[in-house]
């Protein structure tokens, strides 16, 4: 997005003169939406960011949170929506590369990746091509750098047919004492390591800060090819530099390239810098302006004390890692850029790094009313088995094996609970103890498009529940807000509401939002915004990974219980959409106090070893949760709807398919049922024991003395495993 006339005036005021072309380019890159958060900064202050565990909060490239008193997790989320729309393979791949480099800035070791993908319908040829490209891009890059992709979220919806959302997250770990928290000082050297700078990726950030052009062919400068081999060498050589204490400060070169890296580092520490551009190692001949804003991938900035430079150079040389020493920090707060001895720019760092925030107008579109419409007159209930089969084979619910088997989710030998079996992934620290962490990412584009405030709150709650379901204690989240054009008030409204929904729910659940990312302009060339979507990634603490819970049923004769109250909440559900084609109605209400109470109960019951399996109730409701547990455990069940604790329901489909929040299904060891009930009474939690686990492959639900649903497990499994057929054979 070119600078506006007001912004150019602002630049003249800051400099007290006309800017040079290089200076203009620097301001344009740094003041882009992507780098400066100018439209979102004011609202982002609403997010609660404090807790006693937070070591580094929002503001740096990645936050750090104490997982244990001596260990931190560093985690962050990022979107690569626009690049993935034009070049799905490389766009998604370079998204992974970028998020990993954020984690490297604190010197942590990247140990897990997540991908939250909101893509078009597999039967649409263009969307299908995007889906394959995106997943392959993540696979080829993530696998090659040796960081396992352990969890994610996958959703298919026609609104993403040409503009998918590719959200990726990375988790790093480090002993508390090892993270790199130093500050650069005047005289310290600025070293760029990694790929040679080239013309590739000129002005990528401004590309991401505007709608897709109709003729995307012209966006060639924004096409970036990932180089995972160099990324892997960056990871390895940085680990060595950090372990030897050779670097004081690390910053990635991401959006805005060198300009952003220098200006933010200087502004954050009240410093200036002298940079000699001609010292940069380059791939081809570049003019100063290009050197300043190129977003070539796989580059990092490290700050080195002059006396340690030789040792740093030795490490980099042995790793065949290209680098260049391009300048040093000064005291005066001015960034001075030279090229072959001539000064090409002189800009005050603070003003460059922090453009004035913009207040955007916001008002709800008429369409937003669909979220207030109660669902009161539904057609007659279809057969329950038909409904269940349709839901299980919905690409949004079906097993995502086709996706996660393309990812190496085991490298690092930390993955205790791998994708597919648990509501969240569980990894051990591998420090000789059994300590570890859980991580999961979630969103529901349908909820947030119908009701952005409550929908976003539900994303937080769902992530929280998924972390609890594996037996972890959630400690912090990061968020990614994917919205439309901030200059359009009825798009911006969705952003504002989603953000407020996250802020509210995070506050209620006591979860600090330690970082996040905003992606605007997610609209197609006709200006239609995709479903606005809030993605939440959360991390939970696990004291003993060997006790972590999976969702598969395990033992014949044990009891099946529902934790939480079921309400008739069909608005915005997968059921309403798959069976009746409706995407409207009041979405399930966020219930923070029930979330907290029920989570506490689950964690106690897990801690007391009463349970064999836990699964949160999410998309598809109770019937789907039960079916997933049976299919994954390869065991049957026999349950009755009569005993399900529900309020205000009039129809059975409201019990089976409502997506009421704050609920779990658990498998209780048969000898522990009385204790389980007692614990529930003591904590004031509503539970209902609804049936038993069978060792034959049948799935039955009864009402009174009659079966209302009875199916062979193999039929359900076949539906649940249908995604590969849909994607591979759909075209």
């Amino acid at each position, binding site marked *: 997005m070119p600078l506006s006339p007001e912004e150019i005036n602002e630049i003249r005021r800051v400099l007290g003169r006309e800017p040079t072309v290089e200076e203009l380019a620097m301001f344009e890159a740094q003041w882009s939406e992507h780098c400066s958060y100018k439209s979102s900064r004011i609202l982002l202050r609403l997010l609660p960011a404090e807790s006693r565990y937070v070591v580094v909060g929002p503001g740096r490239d990645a936050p750090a949170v104490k997982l244990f008193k001596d260990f931190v997790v560093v985690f962050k989320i990022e979107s690569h929506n626009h690049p993935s729309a034009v070049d799905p393979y490389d766009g998604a791949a370079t998204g992974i590369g970028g998020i990993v480099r954020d984690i490297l800035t604190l010197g942590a070791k990247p140990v897990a990746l997540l991908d939250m993908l909101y893509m078009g319908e597999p039967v649409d040829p263009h969307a299908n091509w995007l889906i394959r490209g995106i997943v392959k891009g993540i696979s*080829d890059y993530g696998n*090659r750098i*040796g960081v396992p992709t352990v969890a994610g979220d996958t959703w298919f919806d026609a609104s993403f047919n040409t503009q998918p959302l590719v959200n990726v997250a990375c988790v790093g770990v480090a002993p508390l004492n090892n993270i790199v928290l130093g500050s650069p000082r005047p005289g310290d050297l600025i070293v760029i390591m990694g790929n040679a700078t080239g013309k590739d990726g000129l002005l990528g950030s401004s590309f991401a800060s505007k709608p897709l052009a109709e003729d995307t062919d012209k966006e060639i400068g924004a096409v970036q090819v990932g180089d995972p081999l160099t990324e*892997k060498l960056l990871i390895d050589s940085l680990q060595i530099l950090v372990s030897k204490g050779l670097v004081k400060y690390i910053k990635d070169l991401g959006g805005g390239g060198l300009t952003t890296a220098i200006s933010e580092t200087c502004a954050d520490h009240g410093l200036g810098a002298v940079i000699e551009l001609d010292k940069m190692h380059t791939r081809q001949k570049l003019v100063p302006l290009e050197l300043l804003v190129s977003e070539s991938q796989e580059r990092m900035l490290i700050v080195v004390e002059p006396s340690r430079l030789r040792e740093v150079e030795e490490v980099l040389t042995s790793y065949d890692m290209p680098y260049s020493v391009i300048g040093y920090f000064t005291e005066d707060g001015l960034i001075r850029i030279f090229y072959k001895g001539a000064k090409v720019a002189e800009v005050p760092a603070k003003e460059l790094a922090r453009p004035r925030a913009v207040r955007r107008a916001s008002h709800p579109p008429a369409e937003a009313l669909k979220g207030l419409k109660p669902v009161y007159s539904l057609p007659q209930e279809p057969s329950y088995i038909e409904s269940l089969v349709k839901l299980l084979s919905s690409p949004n619910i079906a097993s995502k094996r086709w996706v996660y088997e393309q990812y*190496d989710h085991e*490298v*690092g030998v930390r993955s205790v609970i*791998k994708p597919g079996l648990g509501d969240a992934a569980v990894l051990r620290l591998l420090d000789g103890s059994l300590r570890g962490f859980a991580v999961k990412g979630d969103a529901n584009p349908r909820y947030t498009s119908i009701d952005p405030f409550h929908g976003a709150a539900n994303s937080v709650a769902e992530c929280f529940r998924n972390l609890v379901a594996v037996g972890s204690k959630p400690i912090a989240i990061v968020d990614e807000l994917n919205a439309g054009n901030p200059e359009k008030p009825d798009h911006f409204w969705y952003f504002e509401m989603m953000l407020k929904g996250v802020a509210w729910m995070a506050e209620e659940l006591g979860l600090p939002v330690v970082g996040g990312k905003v992606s605007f302009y997610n609209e197609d060339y006709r200006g239609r915004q995709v479903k606005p979507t809030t993605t939440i990634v959360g991390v939970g603490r696990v004291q003993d*990974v060997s006790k972590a819970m999976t969702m598969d049923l395990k033992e014949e004769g044990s009891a099946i219980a529902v934790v939480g109250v079921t309400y008739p909440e069909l608005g915005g559900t997968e059921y309403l959409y798959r069976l009746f084609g409706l995407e409207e109605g009041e979405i399930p209400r966020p219930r923070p106090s029930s979330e907290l109470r029920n989570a506490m109960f689950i964690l106690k019951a897990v801690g007391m070893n009463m349970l064999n399996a836990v699964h949160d109730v999410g998309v598809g409701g109770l019937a789907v949760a039960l079916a997933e547990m049976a299919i994954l455990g390869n065991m049957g069940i026999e349950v009755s709807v009569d005993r399900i604790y529900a309020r205000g329901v009039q129809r059975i489909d409201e019990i089976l398919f409502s997506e009421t929040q704050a609920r779990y299904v658990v498998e209780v060891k048969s000898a522990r049922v009385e204790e389980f009930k007692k614990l529930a009474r003591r904590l004031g939690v509503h539970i209902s024991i609804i049936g038993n686990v069978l060792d034959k492959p049948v799935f039955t639900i009864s009402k009174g003395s009659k079966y209302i649903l009875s199916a062979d497990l193999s039929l359900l499994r076949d539906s649940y495993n249908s995604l590969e057929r849909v994607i591979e054979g759909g075209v």
Partner: protein
Amino acid sequence: MKFPGTNCDEDVRHVLVDVFGLEAEIVWYKEFAVKQWDAVILPGGFSYGDWLRAGAIAARTHAVEELAEARYLGIPLLGICNGFQILVEVGLLPGALLYNDSGRFVCRWIRTVVERPRGPWLALARDGQELDMPIAHAEGRYYIDEESYNSLLLNAPVLRYLNGFNPNGSVHDIAGVGTEDGVVFGLMPHPERASEELLAPKMFSPGGRVIFESISYSLKRGW
């Protein structure tokens, strides 16, 4: 032995040192010298990005060319996944590894069976023993022509995918092969990921242990 892009080096070291109590070091390929070691493992990953062909560029490095000498000295050599691809590319093991049938990278647990166990890596395995391990590869479809198969593998130790578990279209369901004396062995599955109960999914057991137990046993007996 670690190359640019190797990524299972620390995993293998963890298993050797922390699980089986052996002494082991990760050696950067530039610093590798055969004679220092009792046994050498080429771990998995993507040496040189898997570019050209998995293992092809690493196979032309000085370090790997030195392995011919290790072979001559009878030093046990194990190639896991990318390490196997390298050993095949340099000709220390027969055959070739091609792109998976599915055209996709695949990561999942599978079941294999050992035949004619022998040599330092399989000393403790029983003939016909079933071993569960995960695979994670894009180029794991083992190929060998019938003539070479008959002359080289009918008397050598091999690892086969059990019926229904062949994930990539390998001929004769081959998951791993060795030299006739079993001193050099290579396999696509990852034994280091299958050496601890904690990491094995419910339906599987950690089948990689026997390989590390065997080398430990063999080295202690002065292989």
